[in-house]
């Protein structure tokens, strides 16, 4: 089996797997990076979303041979200590329920905010409507993305956190 070398969250990584293996399973089963989720395997749900050379990609249909020499970012590598504005906004809006789809939601949103710094609610809807959440968190995801965009544009603390009864 061939050796395939690429960067994962900034770390050089070598794997020895069949080249047609989807990146998803290499991340999860070979590298034990389980933050990236399996939801459908056919590019329908977005649970497996990662960034490859900065582009939003569905890792369940992305053969690992095609990432050779590339730079993969997973949810584990999005920030140190949950400090990405999206992660902070996700907590402020109390977005996750079961949480299973949320790695993919956040990675999709992170890619989207790089391309659109001043999104309207409609822009957010368009960017996020191919990610499935069976727990029905779409309304909170939309609010969190708009909150994070505002924070990234230098308007931190806009609006109260949803859970005002106490801090973590």
């Amino acid at each position, binding site marked *: 089996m061939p050796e395939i070398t690429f960067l994962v969250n900034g770390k050089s990584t070598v794997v020895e797997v069949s080249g047609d293996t989807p990146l998803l399973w290499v991340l999860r089963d070979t590298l034990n990076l389980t933050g990236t989720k399996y939801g459908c395997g056919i590019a329908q749900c977005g649970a497996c979303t990662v960034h490859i050379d900065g582009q939003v990609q569905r890792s369940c249909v992305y053969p690992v041979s095609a990432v050779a020499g590339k730079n993969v970012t997973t949810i584990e590598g999005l920030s140190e200590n949950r400090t990405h504005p999206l992660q902070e906004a996700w907590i402020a809006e109390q977005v996750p329920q079961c949480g299973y789809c949320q790695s993919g939601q956040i990675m999709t949103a992170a890619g989207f905010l790089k391309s659109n710094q001043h999104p309207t609610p409609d822009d957010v809807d368009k960017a996020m409507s*191919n990610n499935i959440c069976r727990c029905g968190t779409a309304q909170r995801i939309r609010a969190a993305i708009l909150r994070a965009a505002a924070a990234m544009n230098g308007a931190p603390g806009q609006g109260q956190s949803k859970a005002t009864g106490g801090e973590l």
Partner: protein
Amino acid sequence: MTTTSKPQVSRRTLLKSAVTAGAALVVGFEVPQIAKADPAKAAVNPFRAWVRIDRAGQVTLISARSEMGQGISSALPMILAEELGVDWKDVRVEQALTDPTLYGDQGTGGSGSVAGSWTPLRQAGAAARVMLIGAAAERWKVSPADCTVRNGYVHHQSDKIAYGDLVESASKRPIPDLATVPLKSPRDFQIVGKPMPRKDIPLKTDGSAQFGIDVRLPGMLYAVVERCPVFGGKVKSFDATKAKALPGVRDVFEIPAVPEGVHSWGGVAVVANTTWIAMQARKQLRIDWDYGPHATESSESLRRQFRRIVDSPCKVVFNTGDADAAISGSPAEKKVEADYELPFQAHATMEPMNCTVHVKPDGAEVWAPAQGPDWVNGVVAQATGLTPDKVKVHTTYMGGGFGRRYQADFAVEAAQIGKKMTGTPVQLVWSREDDMTHDFYRPASYHRVSGAIDSQGNILAWKHRSTSTSIADWWDRKSPPESSELGCTLQMPYIAKNYKLEYLPAQSGVPRAWWRSVEASSIGFVMESYMDELAHAAGADPYEFRIAKLGDGRKIGNPLNPKDTALEADRMKGVLKLAASKAGWGSPLAAGQGRGIACHFSFNSYAANVAEVTVSQGAVKVNRIVSAVDIGIAVNPEGVRAQVESAIVYGLTAALKSQITIQDGRAVESNFNKFPTLAMNETPRLEVYIVPSEVAPTGIGEPGLPPVAPAVMNAIFAATGKRIRRLPVIPSDLV
């Protein structure tokens, strides 16, 4: 699963305390469980959890309920923290191991966890508080009555002592009588009733929350199972030569079906180094199937059967007055008859079924994303031939439950595979296709409702005849088939002079079980759609009509199950009024838009929705849903709002987007391309309001769902004059 009981305060409750190795105060208590069909089992299998306070003042609650997104791992400790008098940020939660002898029933379902734990958790927290105060008062030589607690300290005038410093002496004090231990007045609550941040949420923003499918053990292998695509079929023979030849494949073997109790299907298991290799090898299997007796079943054949059944009188389940005579004696323009149809629905939890098992000769360890970890314990013991005390079950985070993870079929399969691979940990993963085509579906059902109104607009007669693929029929042939299917029709909230319920089950090989809100998801649609039809026939406003027919001060018990909690019609009016006023009921809407209302009682909770829709060119867009709920005290209001939002979206997917159809004895839809869910750009503005209350909490994971579909369909009627009586809506119904 479908019934919940109030906490039985009268039951003798045990309280033990002990100083553990870490000198922590450990207060153990029993929490009456969700009442099961067998109350004797409930009495011998109580579930317990513990409070632990360490020297640093940290409070840990060991919760035996499963976190599947409903926020229970925060709602339960909030109750405890409240009575203990500690800061929310000091409370930690630990998931209990599963131990039937220690914890009893650890099932999480029926929206029953908060309701069942409310009083026992308060008593346990209060008992610990009394003991801590007692220890401090003794040290200060003052009266306990002069001491107070706040944020993990006992206070007396200007003195204070941290809980951590009191643990040792407090733990040696007598344990107060739980029946009389003073509980805080709801008016003094600092934590309960406040929107508290959930403890699990940060872990769900960086990939660190470990779901069942994320369990990783040294040397672990991965397994998949090829099951017969036809329900009830089995392996005749198979050839694994090609599959075994793939590099990385470790073993291929048959696992038997376990029909009794569990309903696992059996099939051919492939064990490999990675999930992907196992999935690839599975495609190389050559299997000769015996398709069994259901290979010709289809949604159409089931529909023909349904219609045949309701065309003749069915078994009379409940009857008051003479509905048949009242209907036949009414003039045609005062009669309303309508047929309603609901399809099978898949749970489609975001995380497919999976289970990790490590079987050793003398014991087994299981990591299960399970709503019923104690059931998992039992079935794994059976499948491995071990005694239950030798099986350790870890409950992981769950990527959704919705009732699907109450089953133990996936755990049995994992145990069968794990046993064959004894010594090596194995993770069984279901593909999305496995998950969708081998679910236990929400039953399909067919309802014929007929009735009449009199000249004053009173409901003269209401007759509901229905048939379905009964859950009770599938699981437990000892209970009558209708016992799982009738829901709130047995607690008819509206005043109807003559009322009759008839039911007969249909025969089907399609597996079915509890889906979010169970039978209420269907019954709510039928009752609230029909109520709207009656309002229209009476020329009345649908909201006013409901309020009038709920009467004043009425309490409606369940005639077949007198122990069930009575429906309080005034509380139903309360949610209707709140939803209607917040939604601006009666205010004008643009052309093509419509507003609909519906309410329902389930899991002892009350919910009402007002939906606003736009219908144009055969498409419906739901613009806004305003929901009001009365669930007693809302322990974590933000969590309650999230659960109602979730139930609404789940209900909208079922009403507007997806269904499971059957062809040639198998499920047709196998992945999200054929089972679309409500996308963000289709998600309406959701507003959730909670009726203020000081009565004990009831469930909220499910009750928000039943009034969703009828509110939307009633809104479509208001916009277009078209009645949608068959779900999900299809474009041709709208033009």
